[in-house]
């Protein structure tokens, strides 16, 4: 897939967190969806958010690049920082923020444009390419890193929506990568994919680890266990437990975590 994967930094190496959240509360109108969540997101790990439906994990994920700004009645309190910068500062350029903190959604959502244009869209918007040759290089490199180049190189002019579901999702990842983000947020990126396509995305996540801080929301416990090094368990809007993935899945500290991951919840 990837020709030259970046060397992966050692796990457990204590670096300054890429993103930090402190005492974050989120409200949808009167309803409080997130209660006092504080968490550090490391640049070198894949962090998984798990928890039952409605626990707030997607809401919290969407706070990290201000996707909740577009939701009517949503209100975010507390402080979220990207490299020490306040994400919710009034002078923060939200378009720029979302380039630095990219997002991949549950359902693959390529633009109804060519494969090439899907990947070129972001870099063009942000003026990252000075020439056609520059852009070609960016598109090729993003498609390579997303493990899609071999399948896409002979059909760059075809519509992105004509690809298979798994290819579309990798195209969306290539689109996110093309603007050279620092953080990639993935909201159940495999739930609409078959097991083979899922395996390819998981492999891709593993290859991208270390190059980008990756946060993945998943309902698939085994997937969280496979792809992440840190796992956060959310329940009823609170962060119940946040620990090394191996600890969470073999020896969770909180009874609520244990009941959830062993299928005793509710």
């Amino acid at each position: 897939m990837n020709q030259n994967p970046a060397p992966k930094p050692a796990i457990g190496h204590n670096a300054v967190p890429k993103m930090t959240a402190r005492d974050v509360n989120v409200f949808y109108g009167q309803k409080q969806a997130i209660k006092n969540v504080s968490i550090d997101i490391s640049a070198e790990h894949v962090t998984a958010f798990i928890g039952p439906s409605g626990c707030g994990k997607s809401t919290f994920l969407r706070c990290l690049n201000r996707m909740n700004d577009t939701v009517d009645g949503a209100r975010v309190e507390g402080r979220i920082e990207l490299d020490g910068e306040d994400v919710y500062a009034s002078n923060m350029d939200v378009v720029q923020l979302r380039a630095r903190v990219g997002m991949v959604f549950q359902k693959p959502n390529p633009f109804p444009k060519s494969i090439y244009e899907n990947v070129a869209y972001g870099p063009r918007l942000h003026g990252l390419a000075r020439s056609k040759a520059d852009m070609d290089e960016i598109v090729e490199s993003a498609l390579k890193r997303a493990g899609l180049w071999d399948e896409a190189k002979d059909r760059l002019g075809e519509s992105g929506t004509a690809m298979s579901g798994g290819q579309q999702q990798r195209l969306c990842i290539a689109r996110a990568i093309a603007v050279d983000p620092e953080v990639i947020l993935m909201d159940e990126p495999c739930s609409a994919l078959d097991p083979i396509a899922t395996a390819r995305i998981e492999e891709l996540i593993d290859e991208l680890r270390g190059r980008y801080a990756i946060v993945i929301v998943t309902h698939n416990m085994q997937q969280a266990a496979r792809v992440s090094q840190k796992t956060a368990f959310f329940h009823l809007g609170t962060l119940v437990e946040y620990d090394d993935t191996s600890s969470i899945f073999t020896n969770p500290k909180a009874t609520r975590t244990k009941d959830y991951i062993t299928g005793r919840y509710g």
Partner: protein
Amino acid sequence: MAEFAAHTVKSFDEDIAQLRAVITRMGGLCETQIAESVDALMSRNSEAAQTIIENDKRLDALEAEAEALAVRIIALRAPLADDLREIVAALKIAGVLERIGDYAKNIAKRSAVVAQSQPVAPAVIIPEMARVVVEIIRDTLDAFVDRDPVKAVALLQRDQQVDEYYNSLFRALLTFMMENPHYITPSTHLLFVAKNLERIGDHATSVAEMVYYSVTGQRPAERPKNDFTSTVYSPE
């Protein structure tokens, strides 16, 4: 101890209950095999010894059953946390119990040779030693079924008693052999019988450690070892 809410998928609980039942049956069968092999040895009953050797096949079959169940649960349920630890522990415990059964079978085999010679006096310690070993196995399996880490960790001390019996029997048999060289054959077999019981005690204790880990997720502290016979030169 943690409370155990039922799984949302009830058949998962049934699968685990079935696995626990197989392990319990293996434990019960081990107790019987050890007690009866020592009875056969002491009472010089070769017929009983033959039955014990035959019965070991049942333990082998139960181990295979436990393994198949555990593999099935892992494949179908993808267990995590305490479920995962318990199923891995059950798989290992089944293997250990099968091994314990082999030791009992070996005692039964040796009883045929021992029966052909005059009684060896120090052998009177063996039934007492066997009684303690059987007790440890029973309590270990109770700790497994009750998921009781306190009981499991308490058992780690009990093996010292078995080691002490073994030490004294070892010395007694060595002395006996020096004084009665024509009793060396039955004495050597009895030494192996004692060694078998000592090994069973160690295995049972390792099962208690597995139970402790399975319930708590922590390893118990290093346990004391009191078998010093490997350094004995002559029975002073």
